[in-house]
């Protein structure tokens, strides 16, 4: 296993875990207006960190595989720029919803729902780019063009995206402790998992017992919540993180449908330097995040 690729996979898993949870927030806002305070309580302090992790992953990818960037840029320039544009909208509507004054004609819920919709679209775009890069669907052999028609007409691509979103819907009940129609949680999660695993398998990606174990664990989280009404957010975070990272490791080195990621690796000098920066920066980041978590859990001081 290559250290640089492993670091990149870990970052990708963190990014998708955070985005997945944001996707769940987006679903919750639209689905149940009463979930708003609960969702905002989680989302308000962390939205800035999520965005930074996206940048971290993008820059890390550039550091590790600079030679791959021209192909990615040329093929995915439209969806990448579109997602970026929507990212501004995500931040704007989220922060506006937080600070909107009471007598405004735009309610907090309305702004939050627009945020949700935008976030939802961003997640679909990013999932599409991810699955296209890993499976090669939609790309041409010279890696100079991307066919949207080919991509969208592949039923397994749609299955992958729909499956992921169904899992997100199912787990959103757990993460935000939504009571309304909570029987949907295990149904959505299990159906989503089946669709997800079937689709990635049909897309030529590796699936093995680890996938099934993680799938079962995720399903159990939903079932447990439905049965007992109890849930811990950490379990969702860990399960999603492990799922994303396992998909990457099961398809190690795969890019554009073939095993060629190592051929794009940067020269040793920059890679070595990047490891130093990652270790030093990573330690600082871990310390800062632990401090953040500590403060997050600390009760409010009486004013």
């Amino acid at each position, binding site marked *: 296993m290559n250290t640089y690729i492993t670091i990149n996979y870990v970052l990708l898993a963190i990014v998708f875990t955070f985005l997945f949870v944001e996707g769940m927030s987006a679903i919750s806002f639209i689905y149940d207006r009463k979930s708003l305070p609960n969702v905002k309580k989680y989302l308000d*302090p*962390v*939205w*800035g*960190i999520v*965005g*930074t992790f*996206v*940048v971290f992953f*993008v*820059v*890390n990818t*550039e*550091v590790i595989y*600079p*030679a791959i*960037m*021209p192909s990615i*840029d*040329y093929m*995915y*320039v*439209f969806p*990448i*720029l*579109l997602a*970026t*544009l929507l*990212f*501004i*909208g*995500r*931040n*704007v509507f989220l*922060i*506006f919803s937080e*600070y909107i*004054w009471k007598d405004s004609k735009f309610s907090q819920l309305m702004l939050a729902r627009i945020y949700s919709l935008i976030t939802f679209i961003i997640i679909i775009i990013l999932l599409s780019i991810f699955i296209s890069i890993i499976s090669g669907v939609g790309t041409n052999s010279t890696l100079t063009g991307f066919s949207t028609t080919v991509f969208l007409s592949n039923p397994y691509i749609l299955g992958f995206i729909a499956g992921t979103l169904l899992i997100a819907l199912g787990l959103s009940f757990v993460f935000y402790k939504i009571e309304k129609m909570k029987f949907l949680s295990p149904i959505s999660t299990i159906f989503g998992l089946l669709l997800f695993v079937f689709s990635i398998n049909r897309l030529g990606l590796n699936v093995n017992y680890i996938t099934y174990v993680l799938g079962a664990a995720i399903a159990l989280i939903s079932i447990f919540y439905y049965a007992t009404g109890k849930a811990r957010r950490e379990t969702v975070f860990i399960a999603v993180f492990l799922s994303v990272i396992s998909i990457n490791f099961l398809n190690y080195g795969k890019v554009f449908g073939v095993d060629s990621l190592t051929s794009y690796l*940067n*020269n040793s*000098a*920059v890679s070595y*330097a*990047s490891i130093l*920066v*990652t270790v030093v*920066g990573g330690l*600082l*980041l871990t310390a*800062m*995040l632990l*401090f*953040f978590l500590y*403060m*997050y859990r*600390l*009760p*409010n*001081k009486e*004013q």
Partner: protein
Amino acid sequence: MVNLVLFDAGLMGYSLAVHILLVTVGMTLPIIMSIAEFVSIKYKVKIYDVLAKRLANALIIFFAVGTASGVVVAIELFVLWPKFISVLGQVGILPLYMEVFAFFTEAIFLGIYIYFWNKFKSRIRHWLLSVFIAIGAVMSGVFITMINAFMNTPKGFNIPYYLSTSKIIDVNPFAVLNTPTTWVEIGHVIGSTIFAGSAFFLAYFAYKLLKTKGTEREYYKKAAKIAAAIVIIAIILTVILGIESITALMVYQPEKFAALEMNFNSGPHVAEVLGGFLVNNKTVDSINIAGLMSFLATGKFNGVIASNDSLLSYAKSTWPPVSVVHNTFDTMVAIGVLIGIIMVIFLIIWLLNVNKIRNKFKSNKFFSKLLSRKIFSDPFDNPLILKVLIVIGVLAAFLLEDGWVTDEVGRQPWIIYNVMTVSAAANTSPSVIPVGIAIIFFYILVLPATVLFVRRVMKKRDLNKELRIKP
């Protein structure tokens, strides 16, 4: 048919032009906020605490837009200039990577600072967060400027070998942290950014001082004093480091220097060309001051200007748009020096209103009479001076953009000076056009909307309530 290279450059330029305005706010607000909170803790003055809280709320809103805008610029850098980013990735990407951690520092501590304000028992610990936020914001600027310095004076790989084979060898990834222009550029960029940001806020506070009364006016006066102090320090540093930048330009980017000066001469007694245009390789409508360029460059009117500081030493195909950069450069110098002089006068008037200093002068009859003139009254109570400060705020924004255009257009046609041209680096995929246009329109809406939103949020707050004063 759209020229895609020009479109990419236009889109990138436009996005950066908007982004740097947000950066100035994002870099300056934490500094003002931090000073305000420190004063509030040290001297136990509630009004400074309210100021810090209000600025923190404004900061988080600007941060939301600024951070997203930063992502837009970063992604544009990747997707619009794939060949440039490929070279950068193999040689000089480290500062960009380090910037991520500076960005994390700002984002994480800002989250804790704002959302967990009430969880802190120790106020000084809470204040320390604001210091880290300010450090994170400034360091982001430092690291990004390192990339720009690399574009101006590339280092860290075998350039002659790359030019002949397009292959990168002999890489030193740390060289990008210390190119010949890195530190002077950092000083000038950070100084000018903080100057512009504090000038915006000073202009806003000055406007509020003209419009408010009572406690609210007292509040804005305190805020204006902090902003004014930062403006004065920043403009002095910026002017000094600006002069250093020009010296570095003469040595390391002589062609760019020659274009900025619109200089076709070398040897002793070279004239400084002010204004004017280049028509058929001849300077027209300019004011030429004999020997001044020699004097500015060497300290002597008969000092020798080297031949490589003249445009005649270079092929015309590698000249930047000379008329444009020469005039933006002259405008930048003129406005910068003018603001510098005004702020020094402002500082003198301000100091003369400090009681201890004023009392010393009052014993002298001449000074006593002089100080009784309106112009020497408290500058924060003088409507004329307040109006001048508003104008300076507007000029600061112009100056910032003007300086940035001078730097970037002055490097044309190169994206990496003498290594890679802009056209060689550009992404010529037509897919860029529709989403590029959308980004342009989106920015047009988002920036004013954000400013109006922040203004409205602040307006809705009741100062007396925040100070717990009964009306």
